């Protein structure tokens, strides 16, 4: 495919607000995970919580969308000059020619949790001030972002669990290629809530300490949260941060909540991304793993990466730094790959003590300087929904 220009990007994660704070955290190999102190959750685990989200409020005209998930999104729209960059795109193309395609796994369901806790004890009715459409509804995120940015192009919410905000890049490329739009705002947001904390707890997938992807002693995930955006343009003359060089999507067709043991779907997604980018495996300089920190995910991903790229592929999982931002993991790690290409760093595998000796990939424990031309990001979700994205460096 023809590479697609990425002309703006922003991110909010447990490493901070904006690309600069994130890069500083990556360079220092800092973990943003901390013992779970999320509201009244009683769980022995770590979380990747975004600082400042409790104190952030939406502009008054968006009160109907007020919830933690949309606040995270708003913080990311304010970061890195993203909303200004979109305003420029609106001038160039018109609001109707810019699609908004965002991923989320749980949107603002925290508001539903609050509402159920406050049900009328006699009638079971939800409180009158519960605004379902602007908060809990999956599409609330995209509606809020479209309203906040003044965009009138097609608005689509993708919800494929932990690959949600990676797959949006593929959707945007297809809509632009088909001539439906000239540009697209892609990305997504997912926020801490009881549903995912207690849900992953019941699957016995939460790590009691900060997650340690790729480590021989890894024992599960640390749930995080985050938001981020990228502006893709089909035929821009302006400068690019990086390029979307290719994407690959696949289905495991295996199990609802367990990855294929040999990573067949993951392998397929990576091969398809390479083919679409017109690249040989040896041309990819760095691979940001899905790397959740569960026994099964990391093992099957390592095997799949080694089959595609050979053993010794330079990899890391950054989820020890950010936590697993679930539906936002795709955009957070896309931002990490874009930053890696621009800043010339290979991010380290935060929290790694001893790499699993059975693994074939070259897991980078510490951040290192390196000139990168292509970086691949993997995102895999429940339901066996896989997505691999390849980003290319902008010419100097």
């Amino acid at each position: 495919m023809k590479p697609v220009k990425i002309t703006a990007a922003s991110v909010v994660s447990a490493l901070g607000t904006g690309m600069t704070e994130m890069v500083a955290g990556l360079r220092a190999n800092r973990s943003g995970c901390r013992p779970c102190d999320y509201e009244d959750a009683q769980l022995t685990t770590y979380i990747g919580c975004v600082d400042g989200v409790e104190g952030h409020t939406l502009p008054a005209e968006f009160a109907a969308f007020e919830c933690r998930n949309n606040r995270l999104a708003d913080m990311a729209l304010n970061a890195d000059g993203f909303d200004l960059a979109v305003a420029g795109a609106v001038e160039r193309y018109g609001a109707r020619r810019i699609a908004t395609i965002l991923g989320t796994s749980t949107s603002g369901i925290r508001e539903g949790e609050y509402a159920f806790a406050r049900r009328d004890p006699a009638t079971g009715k939800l409180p009158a001030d519960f605004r379902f459409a602007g908060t809990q509804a999956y599409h609330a995120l995209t509606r809020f972002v479209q309203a906040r940015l003044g965009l009138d192009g097609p608005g689509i919410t993708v919800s494929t669990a932990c690959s949600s905000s990676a797959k949006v890049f593929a959707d945007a490329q297809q809509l632009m290629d088909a001539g439906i739009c000239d540009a697209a705002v892609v990305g997504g947001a997912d926020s801490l809530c009881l549903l995912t904390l207690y849900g992953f707890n019941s699957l016995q997938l939460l790590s009691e300490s900060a997650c340690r992807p790729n480590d021989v002693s890894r024992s599960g995930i640390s749930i995080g949260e985050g938001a981020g955006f990228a502006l893709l343009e089909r035929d821009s003359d302006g400068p690019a941060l990086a390029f979307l060089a290719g994407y690959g999507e696949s289905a495991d067709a295996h199990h609802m909540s367990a990855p294929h043991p040999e990573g067949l779907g993951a392998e397929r997604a990576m091969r398809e991304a390479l083919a679409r980018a017109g690249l040989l495996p040896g041309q990819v300089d760095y691979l940001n793993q899905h790397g959740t920190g569960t026994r099964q995910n990391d093992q099957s991903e390592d095997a799949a990466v080694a089959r595609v790229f050979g053993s010794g592929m330079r990899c890391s999982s950054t989820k020890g730094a950010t936590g697993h931002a679930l539906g936002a993991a795709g955009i957070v790690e896309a931002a990490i790959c874009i930053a890696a290409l621009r800043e010339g760093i290979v991010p380290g595998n935060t929290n790694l003590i001893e790499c699993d000796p059975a693994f074939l990939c070259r897991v980078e424990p510490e951040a290192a300087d390196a000139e990168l031309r292509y970086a691949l990001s993997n995102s895999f979700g429940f339901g066996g929904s896989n997505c691999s994205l390849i980003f290319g460096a902008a010419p100097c």
Partner: protein
Amino acid sequence: MLSATILGVGVRGPGLHGWSAASEVLCGRSSCDGASADLPAPENLSARERRRISPTVRLALSVAGEAVRQSALDPAGLPSVFGWPHGDGDIIQKILEELSTAERYVSPMDFHNSVHNVAVGYWTIGSKSHLPCTSITAGIDSFAAALLKALAQLWAEERPILLVVVDAPFPEPLNSVCPVGIEAAVAFVLAPTGTVGGLARLEVIWSDGVSPDLPSLPQLPLYRDLWETNGAVRAFPLLERLAHGEEGTLRLPFGRSGDLVLRTGRC
């Protein structure tokens, strides 16, 4: 403009029990009794998986299976786009109720069935398709969004694709804050224009402005009343055109002020 040949259709809803009977209702040759009917058992899932799926997932799988059978294509060779306004309302409400108790116990099966892509996940398991699959929503405009996504992917990949849209009511109390009305689902197999053996040709334009003069509502009063609440009903005017076998133009609202303009014609 995007275009496709429709190779297969599946539909289920009150009074609509599969395309061949439903097309008689939708073109006015049979009356609509509004009754629901038992769904066929989902194909190619293990007994354990069949026990795990919810009624709404079963509904989505049944229309998907019907459309693919009609197309005579191998389901393993089809990528898929599932549109679903609110995900599985029964499961979501059950978990919200569980989380409002002191124990906060969420069953592992409920949790993995709570993801929005649960229907497409089971579809890929049953159909053994490893091709790209997705699960999207645009609220009430979920059919418009899924149709546009499926046609853009068809354009990009030049191979047939399965499109499914499903919607079903929440239980109370969520039903009161988000009424959906009825359970309904529609599926299409879309193929590149010119593919032989199609039912109809479909052309879609993302319109630059609202075109209020074009027809858009379903003809049958039962469904017309659900136009603003049920995301699957948004596909019914297109089904009516196909049932009549007529050429025609429809307006499908999408977003704050946009439209998809749909043109149907013979292959």
